[in-house]
């Protein structure tokens, strides 16, 4: 057990480094943005009513101090970290003065929920079907799945989402294609609300599953067609072990180990895909928020979303890595 703690510690350090590098990079990129949030706010305020130049000047000074832009870069960087650790990244512009972090936290559950459901479904379905297709290579049905998987695998997230909208929004309008829940239902833990959330999540989730399942299917099929030539599978077949046991306990079970690693590696990409999908379906998650922030010139919010995205993905990878030794007894922990 001590060795497992060591293993976890090592992963935790890696997680910290990823988060540090990612957020630092995001900070620096955002810092060099030509759009100053101070001027944006001033422009917006002064556009509504007329102020004296002195008042604008004092507003500018106040805002500059509020954002800390009068200090040298390294000081700003340290401030960024000290505030970031307290979960404060300044006010947002698009919903001034709501803190950027609050908007992000409001959007996060939607994204996490959608992503988790879509990943679990795509990963499980893809792996089970792919595993069966790899083992029963002569099944016509599974060969058909293979052709379909090859057809849909290369289609990017944006296009699947877009096709879904076209199909169910214009050609056969039976499903909601925008928003996270029906407007007339108040957000609360009621059955009605949960149902409408599920109903609205169906299309975005389906489009994510569709975009992701092909990869898992094909990856698993390739893995399994190698694993079936392993000695332990041959040996179990020679011993007349039940088919189901061989497929489940010998073939698919062993292929899941590399597929779990692959999931950790693919998570960043899937997250990017989710952001795009949300935008297409106007889903109230991080993606939509990010696009709104960009269009509104809200650099603080863009920074906040980017940082939270880096942390969320790194944390998810960390969790998957921790599961790894549980799935594979051979992993050297320590």
């Amino acid at each position: 057990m001590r060795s497992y703690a060591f293993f976890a510690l090592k992963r935790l350090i890696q997680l910290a480094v990823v988060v540090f590098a990612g957020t630092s990079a995001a900070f620096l990129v955002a810092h060099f943005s030509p759009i100053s949030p101070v001027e944006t706010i001033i422009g917006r305020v002064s556009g509504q009513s007329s102020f004296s130049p002195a008042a604008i000047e004092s507003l500018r000074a106040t805002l500059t101090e509020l954002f800390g832009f009068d200090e040298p870069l390294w000081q700003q960087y340290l401030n960024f970290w000290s505030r970031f650790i307290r979960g404060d990244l300044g006010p947002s512009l698009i919903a001034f003065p709501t803190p950027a972090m609050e908007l992000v936290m409001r959007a996060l559950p939607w994204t996490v929920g959608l992503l988790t459901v879509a990943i679990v479904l795509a990963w499980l379905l893809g792996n089970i079907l792919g595993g069966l297709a790899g083992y029963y290579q002569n099944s016509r049905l599974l060969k058909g799945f293979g052709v379909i998987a090859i057809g849909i695998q290369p289609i990017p997230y944006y296009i699947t989402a877009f096709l879904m909208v076209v199909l169910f929004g214009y050609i056969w309008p039976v499903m909601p294609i925008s928003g996270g829940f029906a407007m007339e239902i108040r957000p609360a833990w009621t059955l009605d609300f949960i149902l409408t959330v599920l109903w609205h999540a169906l299309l975005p989730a389906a489009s994510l599953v569709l975009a992701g399942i092909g990869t898992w299917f094909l990856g698993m099929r390739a893995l399994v067609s190698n694993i079936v030539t392993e000695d332990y599978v041959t040996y179990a077949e020679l011993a007349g072990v039940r088919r189901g046991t061989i497929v489940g306990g010998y073939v698919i079970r062993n292929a899941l180990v590399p597929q779990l690693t692959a999931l950790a590696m693919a998570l960043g990409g899937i997250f990017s895909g989710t952001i795009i999908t949300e935008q297409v379906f106007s889903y109230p998650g991080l993606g939509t928020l990010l696009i709104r922030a960009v269009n509104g010139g809200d650099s603080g919010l863009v920074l906040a979303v980017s940082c939270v995205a880096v942390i969320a993905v790194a944390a998810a990878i960390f969790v998957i890595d921790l599961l790894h030794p549980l799935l594979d007894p051979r992993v050297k922990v320590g």
Partner: protein
Amino acid sequence: MLTTIRDLFRYNIEFRIGSILVTVIVLYSGLSFFSPYAPEQIYVVIPDQPPSLTYWFGTNSRGQDLFWNLSFAFRNTLVFGLIVAVLSRVISIVVGMTAGYMGGMTDRVLMFFNDIFVALPIFPILILFYFVLRNDLDTYTLALIMACLGWAFDARLIRSVALGLRHREFTRQATFAGMGPVRIMVEEHLPYVMPIIFSTAMANMIWSIGFEVTLGVLGFTNLNIPTIGTTLYWANSHSAMLVGTWWWIMIPVILIILTFLGLFLLAVSINEHIDPRSRLRRMGGAE
């Protein structure tokens, strides 16, 4: 090499379909050089014409002939994908082969950075770049950024192959025949890595073009350059689906799916060619 391609073409249906699709798309994008209209010209033909013998792909609401306009778009998009693929291949070969061949501390350090790149969610970062650069984010800058972000996954693949090669006896034979590390990597190991480089290059093009399309659709790119992404952006901004100019959206979508399918089939078939076990399976299955 040539005979391998010929044999693949003749006996591997995935490779055949893939190469035909890619060739057709490449030829089509090459037609842009003969276009009667410059890509930035608008209102040169009657707007909103459905596909016909005169306008094969129809015309859009901005008065452009989609056939010629899309040929420019495909050329730009393919060139973009190619630049990303080539640049990121260079990085991943250098990192992957060095880590795999040197092993030890070099390997650990390189893979540590590699894993950071793998873990970064790329899309928010790209958007961040757009946010900073705005219209300075042209195709080439974007290609450079994507190449810097898109090598890590494949570097790991190349490393694992190089790591296996390092422990093969012929590597020691080469060392004791007086060959230096660079010569061993380039002459002895690179041939084994080449097929992976080809197949990941295809996958990488799909990946980078996918992002380019997405950024374009969202308007996060220079909208004056015709690419698949900007084409879809203009179609959306003119509500093409609502006003019934469906061809403005569906034709590029179908073409881009065909492109992806072609690239993907090439990647899959080359990959299968690398793996002797699945090849044996194919041989057995061909009764």
